[in-house]
């Protein structure tokens, strides 16, 4: 959402009902901003799938393969050593490092994957230009309609937002 209209609400419950009402009116490209993860906002916004679990699973698998592979190459292929007559390819002894590298790969992927999915870091964003928006991380709840929504119309959407009795309605980006 880089262009559109923002409405500010005092409580999370007002924000949730505002989003539900806007969806009933046919708006689809909606976004909210809140100081904490508000339970019950995912359904009206139809958020329900994330790439992150798949990324994490794949990276965990790669980590495990890499972990086992390094050990196999180092101790079986390139530098085999007879340690007390034990087998050179000692599968049980290779499990701890394989496990740790699986977790390491998956953990790094969870973090980096999140940054990629959210396109962070992004120090500047049009909403930061809105006066008073800093309270989005403190105690205010905002609903945004993107200008790219097919039902969007500067006047009509502003009226729709005003009907939800927000504290105020403000344009974002160069909308004026």
């Amino acid at each position, binding site marked *: 959402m880089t262009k559109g209209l923002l409405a500010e609400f005092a409580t999370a419950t007002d924000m949730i009902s505002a989003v539900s009402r806007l969806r009933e009116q046919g708006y689809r490209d909606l976004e909210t901003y809140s100081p904490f993860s508000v339970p019950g906002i995912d359904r009206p916004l139809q958020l329900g799938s994330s790439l992150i679990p798949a990324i994490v699973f794949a990276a965990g698998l790669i980590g495990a393969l890499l972990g086992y592979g390094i050990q196999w190459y180092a101790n079986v292929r390139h530098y085999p050593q007879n340690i007390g007559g034990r087998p050179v390819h000692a599968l049980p002894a290779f499990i*701890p490092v394989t496990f740790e590298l699986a977790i390491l790969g998956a953990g790094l992927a969870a973090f980096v994957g999140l940054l990629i999915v959210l396109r962070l870091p*992004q120090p500047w964003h049009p909403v930061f230009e809105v006066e008073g928006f800093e309270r989005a991380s403190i105690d205010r709840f905002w609903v945004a309609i993107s200008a790219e929504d097919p039902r969007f119309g500067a006047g009509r959407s502003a009226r729709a937002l005003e009907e939800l009795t927000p504290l105020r309605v403000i344009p974002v980006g160069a909308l004026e």
Partner: protein
Amino acid sequence: MVSSLATSPPLMAAQPEIPLLEGRPSDAELTDRLLTPLWTTARGWWLLFGVTALGTLWLMVTVTYTVITGIGVWGNNIPVAWAYAIINFVWWIGIGHAGTFISAFLLLLNQRWRASVNRIAEAMTLFALINAALFPLLHLGRPWFFYWLLPYPTRMSVWPQFKSALPWDVAAVATYFTVSLLFWYLGLVPDLATARDQAPTVRRRRVYGVFALGWRGSARQWYHYRTAYLLLAGLATPLVISVHSVVSLDFSISQLPGWHSTIFPPYFVVGAIYSGFAMVLLLLLPVRRVFRLEDIITRRHLDNMAKLLLATGLMLVYSYIVELFIAWYSGDMYERYTYLVARPFGPYSLIFWAMIAANVLTPQLFWFRRLRTSASVLFGASLVILAGMWTERFIIIVTSLNRDFLPSSWHFYSPTWVDWSILLGTVSLFGLLFLLFIRFLPFVALHEMKQLRYGLVQGESSRGVAAV
């Protein structure tokens, strides 16, 4: 008689539940209160900073002395080759387990009380791990060759031997530190954004802004954030179990009486969480007092943590009993000697009995609710438990090594002033890092507190109850 029975309260009278959050401060009030410590320096901060900085300086001096001269300046000898370096390593890394336990385990188990204590516990974990990592590195003797521990293609064509437990340690500790750091930082991001938006000066706004990565708090961000955070918690949870298990394997895959035991992995993990909770309480209680957080970190939190101390303490007692029983039951004369003679009646018997007193008796205090919710009792008990857990590692390492199979190779061990300096120096470094943390970072997870408050208020209004 009958009437008096009827009127007397039932034996297990339901005591009133202590709330997780006393009063219902608004989001703005919460933000203000929890971020004020970032903009002002608390009373006594500089004094503590000075003391711990001096201690850290002394650590640097003694570490430099060790590296220049060699580890002969320590008390280590043959047969007691591990001594303080490994005692302190195991002690610190054990302490580092509580953070991840609180953040990851309790998150997965949906324990809402973790919200006000998890940040401090996670920071504590990182600082403990930094101290822990120092010891094996110094113990290498030539720490500048530390990279020989890693599997990298070298012209010497030599690789680490993965059938030894020691390279497992490298992987386990490195992974644990990395994942803990990511978990901690990810939890901080939304709060750094709040700090950015609340910062009184432009410079601070910029610094916090950089680390906040441009967090906006949009529903989409929260959605993916929750997913990633939960996954990291799920990944960190088996790590809590695995890291100290791997550390314990350093001992138990050897043949030495006192080490060679299958109970070691669970025994170590339980002891780790036990000592870690003691350290969390030791840090949490002064913070709670200084910043007047009694309504946010309530007696309910203290009660829960004390219960965990009691539970893990009892598991530790069980491990002690099983160890002794198996030593006797095995019929092996060396096992019997180490466990039943050398430890309780040998040259280090005083330390053994101190360990029993500290680790077995102290948690028994927490059968009583009044003691569980008393800050001063908890603070004292935590100190005793931390000392007790240190002596436990001393007993495991020193008494097993100093009298092994052959009496002609027995040797007494005592630490030198350098050993003591490095141990106390790491305690200072730990304190210093913690002081910097509470001065510059939001040490209570703000966004989680707001979510907790929202959940509590929603629950009350749906039940039609006035705010408690």
